[in-house]
């Protein structure tokens, strides 16, 4: 809570009182700042289990980035998210990084999002769709796993691009929490190995394998195995075709309890209709693979979500989206049933110097 208050104070000071100081620093220290605002709304058209929601500011992120000295760069980010009707600022990122200490090696330490998967590495306002796929919500706690970390990324200077990341995080908590958690038996550790291929017609594909593991204080062992991919065809400002997806398998083992395996994925193809207008459809799937019925027989219970999304992006700094989502459930071999459907809308904008995105 102290951090939240301090963060809010820092934000207020920087925005209101110390703006001249910030701009002076920007001249002399290379300080870059940006603020990203993400508003979303969801109206349930057909709902069995959830009540309608209203429009809310899902997130306001305030970032400060600058070189610290000739060797290190720093990033500090605070973000406000609504919780129980109140937006609270909390520390999202406070990292020191260097790409100058060891050749071909990037080091990152401090508090930040783990460099793993696809969505976990991108701020939510930069996602190509509005809501979080169930696999992301279930395995990475909606926005992503954020922790105190020490991370090393190595890029090989070879004709075949290859990037490997290994990191260890404190792991007292996993995902979003408002307590300090408990010392884990094995802290969160993770790795990501990525490569890249050219595709026909000027396209390119980035594909990565990921692993994350942790054993909590109560001996519950969690392992995640995943693949993320991004394929893109670009023509100037337009991206005529984008394909983004992730597949994750989670294996949870607790003492004296059967192992639980869950599989989740999403796939999002998007095509450009006009200069600033894109249309995509996201397909989500989530299954607990080890569910058994009353007789102890294995049974497949899967949930699906189909989300056609229309995006209007007049510039890289503002985005407007509208989407319709169908939630479906399937039990055994039965035909999937629509359980919910809802209309979603989003508006995001960025002011200040937003750094460039990864591929």
């Amino acid at each position, binding site marked *: 809570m102290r951090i939240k208050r301090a963060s809010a104070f820092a934000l207020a000071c920087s925005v209101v009182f110390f703006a001249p100081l910030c701009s002076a620093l920007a001249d002399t220290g290379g300080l870059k700042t940006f603020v990203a605002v993400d508003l979303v709304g969801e109206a349930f058209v057909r709902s069995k289990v959830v009540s309608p929601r209203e429009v809310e500011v899902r997130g306001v992120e305030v970032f400060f980035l600058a070189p610290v000295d000739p060797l290190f760069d720093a990033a500090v980010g605070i973000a406000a998210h609504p919780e129980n009707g109140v937006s609270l600022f909390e520390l999202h990122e406070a990292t020191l990084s260097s790409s100058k200490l060891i050749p071909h090696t990037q080091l990152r330490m401090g508090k930040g999002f783990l460099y793993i998967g696809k969505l976990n590495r991108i701020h939510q306002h930069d996602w190509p769709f509005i809501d979080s796929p169930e696999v992301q919500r279930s395995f990475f706690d909606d926005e992503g796993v954020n922790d105190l970390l020490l991370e090393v990324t190595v890029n090989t200077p070879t004709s075949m691009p290859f990037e490997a990341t290994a990191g260890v995080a404190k792991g007292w908590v996993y995902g979003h929490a408002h307590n300090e958690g408990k010392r884990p038996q094995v802290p969160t550790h993770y790795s990501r190995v990525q490569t890249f291929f*050219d595709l026909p017609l000027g396209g390119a594909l*980035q594909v990565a394998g990921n692993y994350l593991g942790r054993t909590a204080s109560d001996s519950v062992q969690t392992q995640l195995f995943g693949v993320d991919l991004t394929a893109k065809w*670009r023509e100037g400002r337009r991206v005529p075709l984008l394909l983004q997806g992730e597949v994750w398998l989670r294996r949870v083992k607790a003492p004296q309890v059967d192992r639980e395996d869950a599989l989740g994925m999403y796939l999002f193809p998007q095509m450009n209709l006009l200069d600033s207008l894109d249309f995509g459809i996201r397909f989500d799937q989530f299954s607990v693979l080890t569910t058994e019925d009353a007789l102890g027989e294995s049974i497949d219970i899967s949930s699906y979500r189909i989300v056609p999304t229309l995006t209007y992006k007049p*510039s890289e*700094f503002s985005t407007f989206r509208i989407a319709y989502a169908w939630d479906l459930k399937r039990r055994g071999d039965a035909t999937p049933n629509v359980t919910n459907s809802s209309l979603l809308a989003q508006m995001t904008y960025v002011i200040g110097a937003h*750094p*460039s995105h990864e591929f």
Partner: protein
Amino acid sequence: MVHLLAVAVALLSSFKSFSVNAQIAAKKPLVITTTTDLAWAAREILGDAVEVRSLLNGREDPHFVDVRPDYVAQVAQADVVCAVGLDLEVGWLPKVISKAARREIQPGGRGYCDFGSRIQALDKPLQQVDRSQGDVHPQGNPHYWLSPSVLAQASREVIDATERVRPELKGKFEARYSEFKRMMLGLEARLKARLVSANITGEQARFAEYHREFSYFARSFELTSHDTLEEKPGLSPSAGRLGKVATGLRRDKITIVLAARTAPTRVIQKFEEISGLKVGVVSVSVSQAPGSDVETYPQLIEKIIDTLIAVSEKNAAKLR
């Protein structure tokens, strides 16, 4: 015994460092440029002593490029990294260089080379810049490579950067650079004479462009930019804007309209429909990609001049 060991270690280490140094000296330095035009200039100036590669292939719009991992891998191998500069590559190159993670090629490092730092930038905004004005380059117009004389001036930077990383090559490129400058000035003079003989001078030398990227080209060839189809740089013009520009061009009898091949085709076609004028769509970068007809820089500039003359004649007949 201790002395003997020390001598042996010293000998071994000096042999090792000698062999490493010999390997470095034997290997040609690798110069990576962002665009094909800089790569062409670097090859002309540095010759066979250096290997030169370009990240882009000449078909892309260098304003909008992704941080591709293959760029990171290429830059990670480079001894020298050259950028057009003036913030042209600001959306992607800093990230590529940072991910390549080598101190020598990062800005301020001895292998970093910014061609744009050598020139006097045009179209530098006089007032404070913000995003309501579109994609304005606060340091000035970065499209200087379309002027042969300005590209020659900017290219000096690659010699200095190469000599910084390989001091043993110092002074070896001066003769080639002098020859390069002579060739570029000769190209400019020859094509300027072609424009004069095609009667594109004075009032006839006014032109409109899709994006303000022919400013340096215009200055070299004594042309005058009359208007841009874009109302704000980097933003697609509305139909109303296209109509307004079309009316102005017809009223003022402007016969030359130029656009880069990366300009949105749909907008160019719409403008041609509205105005009844032919737009000269040209490559603005050298490309060795299959099907390219501008594999060298002189071919590129000649092709722009050819298109400009052809479009001028066609549109003059329409406006008569």
